[in-house]
């Protein structure tokens, strides 16, 4: 199965880190990414620019509404993601718990919809 591991964290904490601390975490990310590439679980992964760069688009009554900022103001913001292949939820959870920001933020694990299954 494919799972999206969504990395949520408080952006303010990230901003408050020293350059050294930032480097340390980025290093840990590199190690983690390499390990899931080697194990064959990695499909894709990216970090996102912070929420001030976000734009939200809605169509209402046929009209497009474009607004500044993310969909909802929350304590933690989506900061990046991994798309992985895992044999079940337990394997995906095990990977999620190795993501560096699991220690400070939270990782949401969501299965990717399998159309062939859900059409049946």
């Amino acid at each position: 199965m494919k799972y999206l591991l969504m990395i949520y964290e408080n952006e303010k904490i990230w901003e408050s880190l020293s350059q050294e601390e930032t480097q340390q975490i980025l290093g840990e990310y590199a190690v983690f990414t390499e390990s899931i590439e080697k194990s064959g679980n990695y499909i894709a992964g990216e970090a996102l620019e912070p929420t001030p760069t976000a734009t939200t688009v809605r169509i209402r009554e046929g009209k497009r509404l474009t607004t500044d900022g993310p969909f909802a103001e929350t304590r933690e913001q989506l900061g990046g993601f991994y798309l992985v292949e895992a044999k079940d939820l337990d394997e995906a959870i095990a990977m999620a718990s190795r993501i560096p920001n699991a220690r400070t933020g939270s990782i949401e694990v969501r299965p990717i919809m399998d159309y062939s299954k859900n059409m049946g």
Partner: protein
Amino acid sequence: MAPLPSILEQTYRADYGRIVATLIRVMGGDFASAEEVVQEAFEAALQQWPRDGVPTEPRAWLLRAARNKAVDRVRRGVRLGAKVEEMEIVARLEQELATAPDGADWQAHPDDTLRLLFTCCHPALAEDIQVALSLRTLCGLTTEEVARAFLVPPATMAQRLVRAQRKIRDAGIPYVIPQMDALTERTRGVLHAIYLLFSEGYAATEGDALLRVDLCAEALRLARLTRALLPRHGEVAALLSMLLLHHSRHRARVTEDGGLVLLDRQDRSKWDAAEIAEGVAQLDAALALGSFGPYTLQAAIAALHAQARSPEETDWEQIAALYQRLSKLSPGPVVELNHAAAVAMAKGPEHGLALVDDLEASGRLTSYHLLPAARAELLRRLGRWEESATAYRRALALVRTEPERRFLQERLHEVLAGTPTTD
């Protein structure tokens, strides 16, 4: 063919959980479909047994019927260009049917129910739904019964159960006993489910008495398996201890005509000495592991009862102290009620009555028959007959089970006649 429905009902109560557990494994973790084919198998039995006679091995017959239906269902569901995994399930099912003799699954996979329990208690499911799902799937309780246990409307419970089953399938929650590191995370739910499973067998008084013994035995079996799986977990030992100590009294709890016998009137020679000894040993093991959780406290209370040679020798002071600790650790009105009863025994009925009155004034437990029943009992002991009768009547209006109703009715008559029994 009069006894047929009762044979079927008995098999349903005793084996439903195991048959479903096996089918879930065979069908690759599809809870909803497994439940449906098992239901269909029971429906088939209802039609065929009156015509062809009851098979010598009813559970094996049902298991095979359910597997046949599973094969049909999976075959029908497989479309052109089906995925490899679906083909694999069909192949595995067909092979199982060709090779497995009747009933062999129980010998081959004794852990199916444990696997089911750990899957139902996956931390990706909310804790109350873990337990609800375990009761529904393992004990074959109806959605209505589970809803009643959780005090929610049946429609709400049905919706939650369906959502949980769908999550197990769609989020890929595996049907396995997890590895060590993930095990402890799930123990809370597992222990709670085993506890409720036992309670359902031990305290519920609907239907056939035999089925309850089976539920208790199954809960004990699961507790032992979990204990073997987690030897360093004190609360597991404590739960096993508590179940053993309660179970040791089961022969003394009911009269021959199914009436209820309270602890102080039980024939203690009918208590199972071997189970008491094992229960006490498990309690010692829990304490040695440094466990002082809610199950340890309850096991300690049960051990004090079990070790008293007569009601008079019971150490009520210590029991009252343990209940007080328990009410701090896992607060709840039922624990408070038990505490009040213990205080009444240790210090006198008027002390217990004060606590019961506080509890009643708090407005909790308004629909729980044991609150007015406890009040009635204390008033009876204080010789306040009229108030006692009023409280017994209130308890009778709330009571749901027949033996308890009979017991309360007898007490009410005694109080009304002014010839109360002495303890």
